């Protein structure tokens, strides 16, 4: 068990990581900040479950993920504190297969907000998996520990999430006319 002050320092040290992960989950800065605060409070409440020397970042990310799931479930029970569309853990639809001949160029057409918006269209666990792997650079075993699933599941989930994200972005690119512009 860590003492409260040490743990508070650890939480503050990882605030950027928590905020980015929260933004990946919520898609909105203000909601992400609320989620970070709730996560920090849960970390303090659950200090006795933390073993000094273990991976603090993974432990905090796990609390954040569980807090988000609780919040989404809670929203379903008590009403629309979270807009209804945010509370949906929608499964992926079946978009058309896509192939990019110039992926990097196409991606540069999107603003950061549009990328985050497209990420928000992925199911919760897919987008957190993709975020932890691609943005935070956690290895598959670390992500598996955070999300409490097998390493093999993380690999396939990451690949599917990335594919789904590209498909979503490609659909948006068509809607916004990026694809036609690049083909001219």
């Amino acid at each position, binding site marked *: 068990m860590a003492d*409260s*002050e040490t743990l*508070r320092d650890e*939480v*503050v040290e990882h*605030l*950027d990581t*928590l*905020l*980015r992960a929260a*933004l*990946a989950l919520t898609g909105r800065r*203000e909601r992400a*900040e*609320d989620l*970070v*605060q*709730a996560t*920090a*409070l*849960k*970390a*303090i*409440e659950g200090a006795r479950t933390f073993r000094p020397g273990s991976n603090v970042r993974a432990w905090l990310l796990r609390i954040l993920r569980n*807090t988000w799931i*609780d*919040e989404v*479930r*809670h929203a379903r029970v*008590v*009403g*629309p*504190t979270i807009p209804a569309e945010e509370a949906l853990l929608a499964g992926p639809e079946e978009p058309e297969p896509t*192939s*990019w001949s110039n*992926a*990097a160029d196409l*991606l*540069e057409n*999107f603003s*950061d907000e549009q*990328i*985050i918006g497209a*990420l928000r269209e992925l199911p919760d666990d897919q987008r957190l998996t*993709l*975020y932890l792997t*691609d*943005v935070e650079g956690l*290895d*598959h075993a670390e992500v598996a520990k955070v999300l409490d699933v097998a390493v*093999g599941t993380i*690999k*396939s989930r*990451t*690949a*599917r999430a*990335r594919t789904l*994200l*590209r498909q979503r972005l490609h659909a948006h690119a068509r809607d916004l006319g990026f694809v036609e512009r690049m083909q001219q």
Partner: protein
Amino acid sequence: MTHLNETQLEDLLAGQPEPQAARHAEACDACRACLDEARATRERLRSTFAGVTASAALRARVQAAMGAEAALGRQPHRPHMRVFGLPVNRWSGLAAAAVLALAVLVPLAMQLAKPETALATQEFAALHGRNLERHAAGSMFASEQPGAIAEHLKGRLGFAPAMPADTETAAVCACCVQSFKGDAAATYLVRTQQGVLSVIVIRDPPDALGLPDRHERGGKTYWSDASAACRVAAVRLGEHTYCAVGRVPVESLVDVLAKLSPPEQ
């Protein structure tokens, strides 16, 4: 060899490929294109989040909340000596929370807080967030009976706060005692058609909260702040100020406050 599967592609991206998969990727245009797309997506995601950092205001807010939480430290099974309905250790916790709030939030208000959002609004938003989080965790006193909520809070604070009179449009669901500026504040959650909001009952007069807007309705004066996503409205009833807080329009907050039945004397 057939094209690389998801696992092999992920191993390649992670820099830990099987030798056979690495050889295939070198020779296969289709798989190399898949890898290039995945790498481009990964790079774009990284750049998207690269500029996201916690602001000084968020750091201060989280530190203050954690300090208050640590000071309040729950020990539910130990009997406590009580003062005005609160365990003695809670009073010391609240005092510590007050010191933290003064030490962290006041300088923040002077130097960092956005001028368009009152400090009280930020604190109320934080309290509302904690209410939702605690309710989700099942750690608030839960009841849909306004009388039961009022009685519970009376047992904790020595007075029964006003409750929504029209339970059709504003249904209470849970309550607890939180700390506002170091003082114990009764608070309860109300479910409305527009969303869930918190009613927070404090001693400070509403005109001392720094809420920027003010209007009259039904012979009462309401103060409000709609500058942030989490909005606040406040009204004085008897010896207390009732603050409604939530991500709903100010009008909805005022509607709830306007229908509070007077507190017991």
